[in-house]
Structures are given as C-alpha cells and as structure tokens.
C-alpha cells in the first residue's frame, strides 16, 4: 500500500532541503470524491498532500506552465520541480523527455503505484451514491472502494467504479521515477483495447452515427486539449489566430495563418478538430484518459486516442511512453510496415 505519510515525509524533506522548487501533488478537493492539484511551496503545507482514488489528474500537464514560467524568468531557478505521478502519468514524462520538451533534471518524480486498483470514474461513483455526497473515499486491501458519506461507509467493488482507462491500463505503476511509493505489483490486462473494439465492431453507418451523436455535443471548450500533457504547443494548428507572435512576425505571416477549421461547433469543423487532435496524439497519447474525464459533455474522446494506440501497436509494434530514447511513431518506419491499403 502507498503510505501517504511516507509521501508527505519525502515531500517535506525535499522542500526543507531545498532540493525542489515546489511540489505538484494532490490535495483534498471541494466535492468529496475528486482530489485537486496542489502546488506546494512551503514545507509546512506538505501535510495537505493526499493520495486517494480521486487523484485522477495527470499532473504532468502542469510542467507546461512551469516551462513557460521558467522561460519568462530572468534568472530562473534551475532546481527541479517535484511531481507526483501515477503509472500512466509517468509515461507522459517519458514522452515529454522523448520530445525533448523537458529534461530529466527538470523533474523530481515521486512515483506512486496504483497497485491493484487505479482511480475512480466519478460518474460511476456518483451513480452508486445516488445523490449522497461522499466525504471520504479510499481503497481497502480487497479492491473495494470504501466510501464514507453522512450515512456511514459503504464498500463498492473496484471493478464497478474504476475508470475505464484503469481497467485497460497495462502499467499500473510508474515506469520512471526518483522515489517509488507503494508496491510494484505486476498486473496485466487482457482487455487493453476493449473499448475500441466495441466501436470497431459497429457498421460504418453505426460508427458515423455514434460519433456524430457524440461530437454534436461538443462545445469546443477545448478542455480536452487544455488538460492534455502532450498538447503543449504554443499555438495549436486548429486555432484560428496565431498567438506565438513576436515583434518580428510580419503582417504576411499573420495574414497567412491558415484557418484549417472554424470556431463554429458545426459537424464538419468539430469532426476535423477531433480527428486532427487524435492524429497529433498518435504515438504520443499515454492514455491517462484526462481528455475524456474533463469533457463536460461526456464525449468519449479517449476512444479516438485509444484506437490509434491500438493501431500503433498492431501495425507498427509501437508502444508509447516506455522508452524516452525511441524515435517517435511518425518519425520512424520499418521496411515491413503494412501497405495492404495502398494500391
């Protein structure tokens, strides 16, 4: 079991010894089930750290903010940032390293193992609680979620409330870390792409209808993009204006900014947005599932990325986020890559 006190103690020492600038971790959220990201600068605040089934956020996303902040500073503090990562999140670190977005020295990784469970799907828990508000949630040793409400505690089997990404997760514990918390439990999943297969088995028309129904809900709030640790570009190709502008950017360059899609949430534009997003994450998405979790309209965005993760594996034998030194999926090839689709 992950011992939260160990985590707090390490965090305290890191801050006391001034080994890290600050620590990105989890703290109690305001709604009972969800934790919230915390940015801990003072040693005394390390007591606020939590580790519970509601720690779904992929905190590596905040490395982007850190990088930008650092770039603005005249005399940047070169110490690393402490960061709490789960198995999936740690793969994001590997991808960021692979893409040279961060250096290994930029982060001090506090890796926590998901052991035999993972994080919850808030919606699944809410359904189980039927409107009751959770005060506290935790896993017990028998893979049950123990929920404390004003009416007392209830136990719910993990498989009924685990986030789907955790059910399909192949790692469960950090693949890169400086300190490891919890047990390294070897756990495999036989259903890594189950959610994808559900859709694959539909007819072409059913697929279109499914996605049309989903994307019609999209309000283009871009939370899926904003929360993604890989969507770190200063300027997204689908944005309609350029904001990576400097004093040297000419009027022509600005005028020639291509409007690949419009802001309107019409089907054509929304589809293309999501297709491009998925393509740009091919070979980069580590399936932390955050895009899907944050979507206010419950669009199963993760299914798109997961599909490409599956194809990368089956077509090109490519797995994401295990080796920071491998070439990227689309910047490499093999002679024997399939080409049966080509005439």
């Amino acid at each position: 079991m992950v011992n939260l006190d160990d985590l707090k103690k390490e965090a305290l020492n890191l801050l006391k010894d001034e080994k890290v600038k600050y620590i990105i971790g989890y703290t109690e959220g305001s709604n009972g089930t969800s934790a919230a990201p915390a940015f801990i600068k003072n040693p005394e605040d390390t007591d606020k750290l939590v580790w519970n089934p509601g720690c779904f956020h992929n905190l590596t996303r905040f490395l982007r903010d850190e990088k930008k902040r650092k770039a603005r500073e005249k005399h940047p503090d070169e110490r690393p940032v402490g960061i709490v990562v789960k198995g999936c999140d740690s793969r994001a670190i590997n991808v960021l390293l692979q893409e040279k977005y961060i250096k290994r020295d930029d982060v001090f990784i506090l890796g926590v193992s998901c052991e035999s469970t993972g994080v919850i799907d808030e919606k699944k828990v809410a359904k189980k609680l039927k409107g009751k508000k959770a005060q506290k949630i935790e896993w017990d040793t028998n893979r049950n979620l123990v929920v404390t409400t004003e009416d007392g505690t209830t136990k719910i089997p993990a498989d009924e409330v685990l986030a789907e990404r955790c059910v399909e997760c192949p790692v469960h514990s950090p693949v890169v870390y400086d300190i490891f918390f919890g047990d390294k439990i070897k756990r495999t999943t036989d259903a890594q792409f189950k959610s994808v297969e559900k859709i694959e088995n539909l007819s072409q028309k059913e697929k279109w209808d499914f996605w049309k129904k989903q994307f019609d809900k999209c309000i283009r709030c871009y939370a899926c993009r904003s929360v993604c640790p890989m969507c770190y570009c200063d300027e997204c190709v689908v944005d309609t204006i350029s904001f990576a502008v400097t004093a040297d950017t000419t009027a022509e360059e600005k005028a020639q900014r291509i409007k690949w899609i419009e802001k309107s949430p019409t089907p054509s534009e929304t589809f293309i947005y999501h297709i491009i997003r998925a393509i740009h994450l091919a070979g980069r998405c580590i399936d932390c599932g955050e895009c899907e979790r944050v979507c206010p309209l419950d669009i199963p965005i993760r299914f798109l990325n997961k599909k490409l993760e599956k194809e990368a594996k089956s077509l090109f034998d490519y797995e994401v986020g295990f080796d920071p030194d491998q070439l990227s999926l689309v910047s490499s090839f093999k002679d024997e890559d399939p080409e049966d689709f080509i005439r």
Partner: protein
Amino acid sequence: MEKILTKKSFPNWIAKLATVQIYAPVVKDDLWSYEVVDAAGITTEYTNAIQSPKKIIFPQRELFLEFSHNDNGSPEIRELLPEDKESIIFGIRPCDAKGVSHMDKVFGGDFEDSYYWKRRNQVTLVGVGCNTPPSPNCFCTSVDGSPFSHEGLDVLLTDMGDNYYVQTFTKKGDKLVNMSKGLFAAPKPKEKADLESLHKDAETKLPRHLKDTKKIPPKLKGLFDSEIWDDESMSCIRCGICTYLCPTCHCFDISDEITSHSPLEGKRVRTWDNCQFPDFTMHSSGHNPRPDKASRLRQRIMHKFQYFVEIYNNYQCVGCGRCISKCPVGIDIIQVLEKVRDHV
C-alpha cells in the same frame, strides 16, 4: 396571476402549449440538456442541465450575414436573421432564467442586438422552481437569487405535491395560462401559505453558501494586483468550461467562414468565445493585456463581481454552480470569492 394546476391536468396543458416549439430538459446518456421535445417528453423532475438554456437564445453559433462575390468580384451581402418561430423553454431553472435577464441587459442598451432579441422576443420562459437543489453546488441565495426567483421568467411552476402552483409575471406568461383557462383554478389561501413556506424551506436546503457577498465588489477594487490571482489560478488549465457552461457569460467572436473560395461565398458568424482562452484579448501585434492565467481568472471574477455590478448593479453570477461542478481541476468560485472577501 396565480393559479393552481393539478398534476393530472398538467399533460393537457402541455398538449395545448405544444402548438409552438418547446424546449425542455431531456436526459441522454445521464446528461440533462435542453432540447426540442414533444409534449410527452416533458418532465419537471430533473437535475440541472449541463448547459443552461442560454444556448437557445444565444446559440453558440449565430449566422450574421451571408457574403459572396458577384461576377465582377464585388461583394454582395445578405442579412441572416433567426427564423420567425415562437417557442417555449419549459422547465428553465430560476437561476438560469435570471441569467437570461442578465443577458437581456447586455444585449440591450444603446446598441440592441437584433439576433438576440429576435430569439428572445419569440421565446417564453416557463420556470420550474427548485424544491430541492438540482445540483450539489447550488448557491443562488448567496448571489441575490432564490430557488423560486422569478427574475426573467414569464411563468413559474412550484411543485406542491399533487398540484403545481402556477405564477405568471408577464403578458406572455398570462397567454400560456389563458390558452387552457379551464385547467387552472384560483389558489386557496392555504395553498398560498403553503407556497410561501415551501419557498422558505427550499432556501434552507441550499448545499453551498457564500457569506457576505456584498463585501466582495468593494473588496475586489483593491485586489487588481493581488497575488490571489496567481495562487488561485495555478491549477487552471485555461479551458473554456466555466464560461461556456455559465448562464450569464456572453462573450463572443465574430468571424468569416468561407464555404467556397472561387467564387467567394461564405458567412459571417458569431460564435461563443471566452475570456479564459489566451487569444481572447491578444492584439495582432502579439501584445496581450491579459497575458496569463492569473489575469484571466481575475477578469472572470472581477467581471462577474465588480464590473458588472458597477454597470448593471447585479452580480453576473446566478449561483447555478456549473463552473464548480465541471471544473476539471476543482477551481471553486465560492472558495475563490471567500478568499477575496477575507483578504487582508
């Protein structure tokens, strides 16, 4: 006027109303949302919809005009107004209706917004009061609202158990009741009294509270350069959820969408935009008056609790709690405001 409608008669009334288009909350995949429904699809038992019905009056995409080039390459334009079609939003929550009344202020004034008003004038708002809070983050009473506020509403229904207590506030509202006069009875004094106590009781059930809201606008004046904004925005991921789901946020963008390049054809459209996107205020020179998350959070809070108050004497927040429920990183506007209020 005030009337009583039995639950038994309710479907008959709805059937009468259904001569015009009705939007009402429907549930799809566990999400409530306001959609066009037929009479049978209407219910008064629903939790708060993910999106407020603002999207009906102020759609995310509004066509402004159509442009094209004639044979000489000269532009021709044609105004595109919303179609003539009366409708009813049935089951709007009092907070959302209050949001509409706030939008009325914005889209009125010196420059009346033709598109907004064309839609607004054709819609009748039938509210359903909240006997129990429809969201775990409701805090309407903290921002001058109540579960039975009728601001912005034409009609308000209160669920009295076997009956609905029906109140109308406008001619539009009267019209709806008058369509089926026979179904409605005059309320008895007891019913009036029951209504009052039910309303009072409902106010006590609010799950979230912000105390001393009045202190906030004056307090904000001095906090423009406060570190609060940095601290509170650390975990913000700059998405547009809080604003797009907000029943009062009204910011928008206007852009030209080209459907054919040769010959040129396209439409000028209004789309929602929001102050949390980094490009929202960026000048074409690259200069951005609100360059970071902190200044954008500040704008959101200050606009709602200072600027709007200064202009219209209202908070631009109706306490629906959507931004709290859906924030991916748990930024809680109540907590932020408490910090503002208690800032020394």
